């Protein structure tokens, strides 16, 4: 990877993290994007979801996982359509329930890497209960939450992450409900790996996703994106490129945030990017496996 690109993203030159020269030839993932599925995707041109999908592919590729070892589970919404284009074991479920389906699958196949792909409405409104309980159990699932602060597929209603004042088709006078801070919620509920990046910072997202997928525990990556066709239009935020640029201008790294004065921190309105927690705690399927051993050993 070119050094200036890495520097532009505030990343250190780490060869281990970056694709090597013949990466395409070696990559089972990239070679096997579903050829029998019609592209292009259903997503609007300019949508950030393509960047997230690219980051996911690169993260899985970086970890050297076989396609058969990976299961993608999704709910309903624009984001939840992602698995259909990817050549893994893919389960497209009901609205909000990706993590509950994923829980059953992970328990049946603890050896499999199970990744739940959800939008903000899917993960935190209708699926909010499953989100906090999956974190509490610390079950070995990666939750990839693409946060565009709106319900895009249904045309721009306000979501649990829409900022106060944001306009939506169901908040025509501006949203009056406070948004969920996804990462704080995940940490409080017990997730053992939590990180946030944006679709502008694609390489950083690769890194967080590969760490999250490698984590033996409930890991959460919030991928901050945008919806220029619905939310952007209703709030006069410009084109996809304008909204992408805004993610660059209105975000700062955890390190930069750490260097702010207490006063500046209190007044900060920018998105903080970073890995907020990475701790060890017994993973659910491993704990259950121990339980089986104990019970079969004759414990009453």
């Amino acid at each position, binding site marked *: 990877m070119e050094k200036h690109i890495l520097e532009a993203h505030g990343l250190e030159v780490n060869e281990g993290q970056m694709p090597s020269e013949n990466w395409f030839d070696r990559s089972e993932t990239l070679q096997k994007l579903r050829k029998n599925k019609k592209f292009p995707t259903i997503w609007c041109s300019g949508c950030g979801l393509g960047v997230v999908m690219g980051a996911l592919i690169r993260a899985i590729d970086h970890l050297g996982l076989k396609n058969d070892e990976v299961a993608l589970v999704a709910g309903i919404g624009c984001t939840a359509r992602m698995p*259909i284009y990817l050549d893994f074991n893919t389960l497209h479920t009901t609205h909000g329930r990706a993590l509950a389906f994923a*829980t059953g699958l992970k328990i049946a196949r603890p050896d499999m890497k199970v990744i739940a792909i959800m939008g903000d409405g899917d993960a935190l409104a209708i699926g909010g209960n499953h989100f906090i309980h999956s974190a509490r159990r610390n079950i070995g699932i990666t939750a990839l939450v693409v946060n565009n602060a709106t319900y895009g597929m249904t045309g721009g209603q306000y979501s649990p992450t829409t900022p106060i004042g944001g306009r939506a088709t169901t908040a025509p006078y501006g949203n009056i409900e406070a948004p969920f801070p996804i990462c704080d919620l995940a940490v409080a509920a017990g997730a053992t790996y939590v990180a946030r990046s944006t679709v502008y910072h694609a390489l950083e997202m690769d890194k967080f996703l590969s760490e999250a997928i490698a984590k033996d525990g409930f890991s959460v990556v919030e991928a901050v994106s945008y919806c220029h066709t619905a939310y952007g239009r209703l709030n006069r935020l410009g084109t996809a490129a304008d909204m992408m640029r805004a993610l660059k201008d209105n975000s700062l790294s955890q390190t930069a945030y750490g260097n702010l004065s207490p006063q500046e921190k209190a007044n900060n309105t920018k998105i903080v990017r970073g890995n907020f927690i990475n701790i060890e705690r017994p993973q659910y399927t491993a704990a259950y496996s121990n339980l089986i051993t104990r019970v*079969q050993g004759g414990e009453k």
Partner: protein
Amino acid sequence: MTIKLMQGNDAIGWGAIAAGCRFYAGYPITPSTEIAEILARELPKVGGKFIQMEDEIASMAAIIGASVGGLKSMTATSGPGFSLMQENIGYAAMAEIPCVVVDVQRLGPSTGQPTAASQGDVMQARWGTHGDHPIIALCPTSVRMAFDLTVRAFELSEKYRTPVILLTDEIIGHMREPVDLPDIKTIHIPEFRVTKKEGEYIPYRNEPGDVPPMANFGVGYRYHITGLFHDPQGFSTQRLDEIDPWLERVNTKLEKHMDDIALVEQDRVPGASLAILSYGASARTARHAMKLARARGLKVDLMTLLTIWPFPEAQVEALGERVERIIIPEMNLGQLAYEVERMAGRKKVRRVTRANGEMVTPQMILDAMES
């Protein structure tokens, strides 16, 4: 041989273990909770897994996920929880994922009367989820039958790739009877799934009445499962030439195999012009009433439906042609009676209903014979 005293809910738990169920997800609810308790205790002993989920929606989702991962899976609940499970039951029907859902019926609607029995979920078991779909529902009438039908529920679910509802009730669930259960090691359900990779695999090939085998995730066939209408490969489609063959296949896959699916018990006497038709706990009242009536010299047939969905049309239609009157005791305001009326005609049917949590009495049935 060991005869044990146990309740229906225990028998369901043991039936699940015997059938090879190795995953249970559930949420506590009266009067089904004993099933969760016995499986929390017994599943780890056989290497199986139990989880108490955050609600019934998640429980239903988890058993589908585990089934996709290759484990025979079950949940158990009662009315309010059964209502919450409906969306994902439809998903299992649409995506053709085998799983077993036990509904120990209690008095409803709403919170109703948690400790009182009912047969109020008959229509919900058939039409509770949205859209046309196939479903199987089995109703045990005794503790021993609760065991047998649980095993049968798993077999039918695997064979026909469909959710199966074990539709029991508080009376069967909590009633204790002495039972002699078979050695669970003697019970074997054939393997209907694709468990290793050999050649091409089409997850949803469409031939009328056909049930293409399901490949477990991780076998090596990386395919797509969705609740959207899908083509033979599993990818969502809006094309009528792909949706119509799917509808044809899925909505005939049970009807074409009713010889295998419809479990009906009959106790006939020559020259009977009267029949009692029932299911579940009410079938016990029906049998008692039949004995009393026959002791009085009445010629009365008895038909007990162990399979209520798909409705055993052929058997009930034949009964309607044979007798002048069919009496249907139900612990609801008359739900399965609609189906009997459809097959035998309204004029032949007498409903005997009770929806206050108490059983229909034999005397109520005898009174209906005379009216």
